[in-house]
């Protein structure tokens, strides 16, 4: 406990570095996945290659990637940008399928009704397709958020600041409190982010929670949660 109190500024520093690395990666993964997922959904021949390609990215081992990336994009080995890029790639790998599944799951009658009402294609995508795919996209984003926060710690092996540095450093110096602080804060950050996403979802998609009068109706809330297997 005294270690924590004595090192509060350091802990906050690491926490901030962790947020500053993982958050941009999560946002970028979402932004990149939207067009890719749309392509996979819209053009059937692209569906296989895009989804398989994205899935394969997740199979890249993270440590070698951290070492190769600086060579490819011309950054320094210790640059946090490497981690952001790598985490974005892993995020996209998970997210693309959620976006494509979410768009596939839109009730065809809602889409056809929107066209018949006189929506232009882009506006229909933004005002009808995207919100209706929202619950599935959100469940994918929750997985990405949690896995990104946990993966972010791997950068510590290369000395890139994050909460991970607390446990690599604590391990080398034999300070148990430091190791535990790193682990607990990583988990807490992941849970907090997940909670935040759930609340944002409720705010943005109140309709997805309304109890249905007909029990037989398809639920949008159900599908789409994928298993997160963290590569190491």
């Amino acid at each position, binding site marked *: 406990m005294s270690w924590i109190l004595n090192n509060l500024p350091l802990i906050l520093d690491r926490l901030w570095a962790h947020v500053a690395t993982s958050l941009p990666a999560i946002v970028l993964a979402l932004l990149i996945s939207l067009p890719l997922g749309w392509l996979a959904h819209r053009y059937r021949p692209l569906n296989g290659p895009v989804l398989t390609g994205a899935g394969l990215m997740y199979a890249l081992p993270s440590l070698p990637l951290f070492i190769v990336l600086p060579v490819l994009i011309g950054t320094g080995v210790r640059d946090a940008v490497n981690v952001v890029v790598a985490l974005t790639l892993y995020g996209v790998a998970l997210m693309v399928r959620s976006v494509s599944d979410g768009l596939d799951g839109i*009730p065809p*009658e*809602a889409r*056809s*009704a*929107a*066209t*018949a*009402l*006189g*929506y*232009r294609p882009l*506006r229909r995508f933004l005002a*009808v397709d995207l*919100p*209706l795919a*929202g619950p599935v996209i959100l469940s994918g984003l929750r997985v990405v958020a949690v896995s990104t926060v946990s993966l972010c710690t791997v950068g510590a092996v290369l000395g890139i600041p994050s909460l991970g540095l607390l446990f690599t450093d604590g391990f080398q110096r034999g300070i148990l409190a430091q190791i535990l602080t790193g682990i607990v804060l990583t988990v807490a950050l992941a849970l907090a982010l997940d909670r935040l996403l759930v609340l944002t979802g409720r705010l943005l*998609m*109140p*309709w*997805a929670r*309304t*109890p*249905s*009068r*007909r029990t037989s*109706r398809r639920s*949008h809330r159900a599908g789409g949660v994928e298993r997160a297997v963290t590569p190491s």
Partner: protein
Amino acid sequence: MISYGSVTKRFRDGTVAVDDFSLSVPRGSLTVLAGSSGCGKTTLMRMVNRMVDPSEGRVAVDGQDVAGQDPVALRRRIGYVMQNSGLLPHRTVGQNIATVPRLTGMDRSAARRKAADMMDLVGLAPELANRYPAQLSGGQQQRVGVARGLAADPEILLMDEPFGAVDPLVRADLQRQLVELHHQLGTTILFVTHDMDEALTLGDHIVLLQAGARIAQQGTPKDFVSAPASDFVRDFLGLDRGQRTLRRETAADGSVLLVDPHGRPAGVLAE
């Protein structure tokens, strides 16, 4: 006014959904396209707002070929009510009804007032405006669908089996209301159904279609019942099975009953 001139629709797989179809739907009429599933009736209707484009022939609204018109602008001035209501599940009732007014640039508060007026018109309680479609009964959803179709004051309303999924009692109520609305607003309504009873109840002009959208018979409900043009028509109406042939029978209290071939009373005779 809607007119079809020698319209043919061939789909990519080679099936001919509509084969050389011509029809003129007079302004202000309630015309029913009836026929069993796969006869091309929905395809015909979707040609009016360019959801489907004909392979040959022309479809014109008020004398203007729709092929030359921007489909989006065309759709916004033609109301469309579909099966299972087709409501947008993520929009409230009020927002659903206000969709087209909003798309055409009406400001939010005016669109909200318009939606409230439409809800009143179709008999929906104002407090339903903030509900989501999934929170409504099937009959209420259909009313919202009709209100949405009429919200932009269209001259033409297309209705694709709108009452197919509701129970008979509610359906009868919706049908009665549609006839009233039609008298009140004078909108040209093109109505698609596979239910001949519905066609007879609603249509002031009925077009009965066979496969390939070939016209088996067209005319008023009375024409159909009194002078069916072919065996197909007799069969479709249920005349063959005697379902529409009623006998008089005098009840114990002296009133005259009309009884169907199975001996079930269909109603009483008003002299």
